[in-house]
């Protein structure tokens, strides 16, 4: 099968859905010729025109609210919000409007909205350009939270998200963008709420989110050489979470390590650990461990950044300590 990058897979999913459904529109800053901050909308305006690729001013509350209004009227906006950090500026519209409209409307008028955010670390992105705030959205009933790690997953899950009738925060880890992988040319759907076991193992389960999936797989490879068989589970969707798959894996291995780019306190890892403590308690042979960013903003200096960013070594150390 042909290989394309994570970034190209995103563009392909959007284009195919826009061809399939005239109600799908793109909104955001610089999404026209410039192609958006993520450069994933390059060329789309040429095919679909400026009535389906709407360039907005730098007014995040304004155009998130407007997207909700358009969604209530039957459109399926894909919002390019750029950096995940920018979602803070539009937090009220996301949390108090988008997330609650379905509840207000008794399910009559729905908000089919995909808010694409570019999350996590990239070299010297700095404190307001490197955050992973999925845990905040995970605490908000009415939102779905998706975070694919591979080109294959991102195309299938973005397609599913565009077709979903709920507001979805779609996390695209920066570190995943250059990654290449096999992606079918035709459209396909990966159901929201299904985790994927990226590697099977018997001694420990590493539950990894987004960009950490790749580090976990590399760590698992090294561990294998030391005779440690690690299973790597990628939830892919954070809300709703595929509890069954995750719990089954931990019941099998008896050990759990959870890792994400976000800082640990209040992170999604806490939620997953609490669920495991509740549902896999008797199978646990060791404490559940969490690996995430340091409890700091993200410094710009490359040397400092590398100390706050979780890495493959952290995974190796923790797993070896557990076993």
């Amino acid at each position: 099968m042909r290989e394309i990058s994570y970034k190209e897979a995103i563009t392909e999913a959007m284009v195919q859905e826009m061809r399939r459904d005239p109600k799908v529109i793109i909104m955001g800053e610089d999404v026209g010729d410039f192609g958006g901050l993520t450069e994933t909308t390059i060329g789309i305006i040429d095919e679909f025109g400026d009535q389906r690729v709407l360039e907005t001013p730098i007014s995040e509350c304004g155009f998130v609210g407007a997207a909700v209004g358009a969604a209530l009227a039957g459109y399926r906006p894909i919002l390019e919000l750029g950096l995940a950090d920018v979602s803070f500026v539009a937090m009220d519209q996301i949390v108090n409007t988008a997330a609650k409209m379905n509840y207000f409307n008794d399910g009559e008028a729905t908000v089919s909205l995909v808010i694409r955010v570019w999350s996590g670390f990239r070299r010297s992105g700095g404190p307001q350009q490197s955050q992973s705030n999925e845990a905040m959205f995970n605490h908000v009933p009415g939102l779905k939270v998706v975070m694919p790690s591979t080109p294959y997953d991102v195309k299938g899950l973005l397609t599913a998200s565009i077709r979903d009738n709920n507001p979805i925060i779609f996390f695209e880890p920066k570190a995943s963008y250059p990654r290449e992988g096999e992606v079918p040319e035709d459209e396909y759907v990966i159901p929201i709420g299904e985790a994927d076991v990226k590697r099977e193992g018997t001694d420990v389960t590493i539950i990894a989110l987004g960009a950490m999936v790749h580090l976990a797989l590399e760590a698992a490879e090294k561990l294998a050489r030391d005779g440690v068989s690690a299973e790597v589970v990628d939830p892919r969707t954070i809300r709703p979470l595929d509890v069954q798959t995750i719990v089954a894996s931990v019941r099998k291995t008896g050990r759990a390590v959870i890792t994400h780019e976000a800082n640990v306190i209040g992170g999604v890892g806490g939620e997953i650990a609490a669920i495991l403590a509740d549902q896999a308690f008797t199978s646990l042979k060791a404490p559940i461990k969490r690996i995430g960013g340091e409890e700091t903003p993200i410094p710009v200096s490359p040397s400092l950044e590398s100390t706050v960013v979780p890495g493959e070594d952290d995974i190796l150390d923790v797993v070896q300590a557990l076993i």
Partner: protein
Amino acid sequence: MPEMTMAQALNEAHRIAMQADSRVFAIGEDIGDYGGIYRVTVGLLDEFGKDRVRDTPISEAAIVGSSVGAALVGCRPILEIGFVDFVGTCWDQIINQAAKYRYLSGGKASVPLVMRMACGAGLGYGVHHSQSLEAWFTHTPGIKVVMPAFPDDAKGLLLAAVDDDDPVAFFEHKFLYTYKDAVPEGRHVVPIGKGKIRREGRDLTIVCWSRAVHWALDVAEKAATEGIECEVIDLRTLVPLDEDLIHNSVSRTNRLIVCHEACRTSGFGAEIVSRVVETSFDFLEAPPIRVAAPDIPVPNSIPLEKVYLRPESELLDAVHKLTGVRFHKLKQH
């Protein structure tokens, strides 16, 4: 000791802090003549004048941002946000500005800002005026999170928060403003970061904060009549967390319930459970239980709101469940 409501205790704390330090000022919507939605700032305008008791337009982002700016140049603002539900409108200013300034400046900048926010359901105020969002703040390095459950703590912690050189998110549960209790006179300070055992017990530990503390104490009372002794820990501060207090208690009771009013998923209860599982794993004899609101927006009508406020009714069941079972982990390490 005089008895007073939590609102009165907070009012007294404002007065003491503002009398002691001219850099302290209050800012927010309707805090002047109106005295604040919850009457917390009543009388301050007359005593301290409109420069130090600042009524603002409905412009949350500008109100928080300008408090940050004032703090940067040496003031100590006490900001009132009438409903924590509104923080979304000023979230960037809180998360990307207030919380990060000290760090980004390499320690050169200080933002001694107190954000007082009313939280919680129970008054039929509906989706946009009843939420509990403390978990968002706990996930943000650089902000301290305080949630008193009693008037004396409200006073003591607010005075501590004003003294603190970092931004403090100070949550006041709407339902507790009228709760009356004895409050020490004068400059009574309660240190940030210290929880309190409200009731001792040997059978299980209930960790809770804000209004949930009152639920836990009621339940502990009921359980005692059945011979179950619950230890009730009132965290008072979520960040920094008094981990030792929790671990010491769990190492004695070997059982943990975390109870909070906020929605369950990614609530702060998850954080506490996973920390205990991480660090007190060997002491645990049963799976820790989270008692929290279902994952729904807060409904408006009173009977539906009761569904959201389920933790109150579910807590006793959780106590029974936890004391009725005894698991054994496969300890192979």
